[in-house]
């Protein structure tokens, strides 16, 4: 049994999906931990396996996909191989998730107050009346104005930003240990984005919540995360504290991502990454980035291990060209 004080430990998790009879690994050998009050950012292009990682941890994978190796420990309980009842009892109680699309993630035919309080009825055995009272407090916590009057309102009566607040209240209803936020601000206006992120940061401070933040916005990463993991084609290619990552992006893909990010001070043009992520069936062996990598070499046909950068055990990279330096 691992340290129960660490709310989420993922060890060597591989998630595979069966498409037309063939098994594809969409997440390979992923390991990370999330500590209380820590935000771990998971970045990468669309289709790199970020959302699959989140759904694997939550146990909400589509029917064709499953975790085929590794462990996912929530408060020391391994979810891989646990029965559905165990997983259900942790979901929404210890582990919660907010989704990218606040417009479609709330049920259009159920009142907001009921949706927010439902997890409390499920996990804490609260009555409908008690859950409603708690839902009002939660909506006030996420700063929904006139919360008491809006308990009986329906999602279509809320704006996108308000719905995302409701989603956060809903996910946080029980005393969560880990919140998984899958691009929580992508669908929102820039000003609302900042409010939502500030709200999550506040809650993190007072509730001791650990957050796995999935995003492709490196600006968000720089402002709220302590650690970064860069994913490409289902592999973690670089893992580092935020300061070290921005000071010294080491994997060729990380450098390319940063070069593709707009900057105010830089007069130089944006540099898009040439090519695109290969389709699942066409992933090269070994390092999956080598078909687009300027440093590709014959030995990249074998998957490089994660190795420390310049002797820093906190900053790891998966690249033959960079780890030898």
């Amino acid at each position, binding site marked *: 049994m691992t340290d129960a004080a660490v709310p989420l430990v993922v060890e060597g998790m591989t998630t595979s999906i069966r498409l037309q009879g063939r098994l594809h690994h969409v997440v390979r050998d992923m390991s990370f931990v999330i500590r209380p009050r820590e935000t771990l950012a998971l970045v990468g292009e669309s289709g790199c396996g970020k959302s699959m990682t989140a759904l694997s941890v939550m146990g909400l994978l589509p029917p064709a996909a499953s975790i085929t190796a590794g462990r996912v420990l929530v408060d020391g309980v391994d979810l891989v191989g646990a029965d559905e009842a165990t997983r*259900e009892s942790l979901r929404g109680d210890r582990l919660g998730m907010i989704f990218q*699309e606040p417009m479609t993630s709330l049920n*259009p*035919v159920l009142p907001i107050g009921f949706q927010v309080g*439902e*997890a409390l009825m*499920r996990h804490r055995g609260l009555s409908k009346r008690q859950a409603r009272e708690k839902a009002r407090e939660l909506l006030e916590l996420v700063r929904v104005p006139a919360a008491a009057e809006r308990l009986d309102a329906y999602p279509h009566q809320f704006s996108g930003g308000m719905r995302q607040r409701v989603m956060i209240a*809903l996910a946080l209803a029980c005393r969560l240990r880990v919140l998984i936020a899958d691009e929580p601000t992508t669908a929102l206006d820039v000003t609302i984005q900042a409010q939502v992120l500030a709200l999550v940061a506040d809650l993190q401070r007072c509730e001791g919540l650990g957050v796995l933040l999935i995003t492709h916005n490196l600006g968000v990463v720089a402002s709220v995360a302590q650690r970064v993991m860069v994913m490409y084609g289902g592999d973690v290619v670089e893992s580092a504290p935020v300061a070290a990552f921005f000071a010294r992006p080491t994997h060729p893909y990380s450098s390319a991502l940063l070069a593709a990010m707009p900057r105010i001070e830089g007069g130089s043009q944006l540099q898009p990454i040439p090519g695109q992520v290969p389709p699942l069936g066409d992933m090269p062996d070994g390092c999956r980035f080598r078909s687009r990598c300027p440093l590709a070499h014959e030995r990249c046909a074998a998957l490089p291990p994660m190795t420390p950068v310049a002797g820093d055990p906190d900053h790891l990279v998966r690249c033959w060209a960079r780890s030898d330096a």
Partner: protein
Amino acid sequence: MIRFVIKRLLVAIPTLWAVLTTVFILVRVVPGDPTMVILGDQASEAARAALREKLGLGKPILAQYIDFMTQVLHGDLGRSLATNRPIVDDVLAVLPWTIELTLASLVVGAVIGIPLGVLAAEKRDGFADWFARIFSLAGVSFPAFVSGILLLLAFSVELRWFPVISTAKSDDWFGRLRALVLPSINLGLLMVAYVTRVTRSGMLQALGEDYVRTARSKGLGRRLVVWRHAFPNVLVPVVTVVGLYLGVLIGNAVLTEIVFNRPGIGKLIVTALNQRDYTLLQGLMVVSAFAIVIANILTDLTYGLVDPRVKTA
């Protein structure tokens, strides 16, 4: 909600007016002299003139139209040519039979169709799904007179659970309910088929929606996710189908009423056709049209109950 009801009722007025006008015109544009149709080509000119006078066909068309509308608005549908009884009385005598049969078939359709559709969607391509698909295909394609006779043979003649002839005295509630079982199953099979299909496809879509994922992320079990979160979103298409096929049911009731020997609007229509009872037919058209308009209003009102987005719209 009350404003929604009033608004919907007001919208029904022009619809009903259009329906009545259409019935009026339809009856009068049918080619040929109606007196010839009613009395046959051997009738004397004097008899035909008398009938024309009785039907008010001698008057200018506008006067006929005003007469017709005034009558209908006073709840008077005229007298039957065949029996000379007021048509309203004939209709009211059989209307309860039609209403109870239609409602019972609706209940059969919902009680069997909804769980079957939900189960089929949940276990997509599994045994339940195949069963539901074959069952609903059979329900649509099986003629009502064949399924009716099979039901009679099995449950009335062999097992003797239900009466062969469905007429029972109206004060004998148990007898009347018992007589209702087989006809409503027979007529309801069609409803089961439609409801199963629309529930299945609606549930397949709903189960893939983001809000179902949200419900699962709260740790809710399968039953709550399906029935509390996914199913209520399927009610709108289900209510639509039920409302639409209410009209079809009234039409299909004819065969069921004949096989089970029940009185009803359907059978009255057949009688009117056979006897060339042209005023009775006109009255029945008005009654059927009213029934469908009322069914539509009820459907719209139900939308307001099942979908919170309709109320405020």
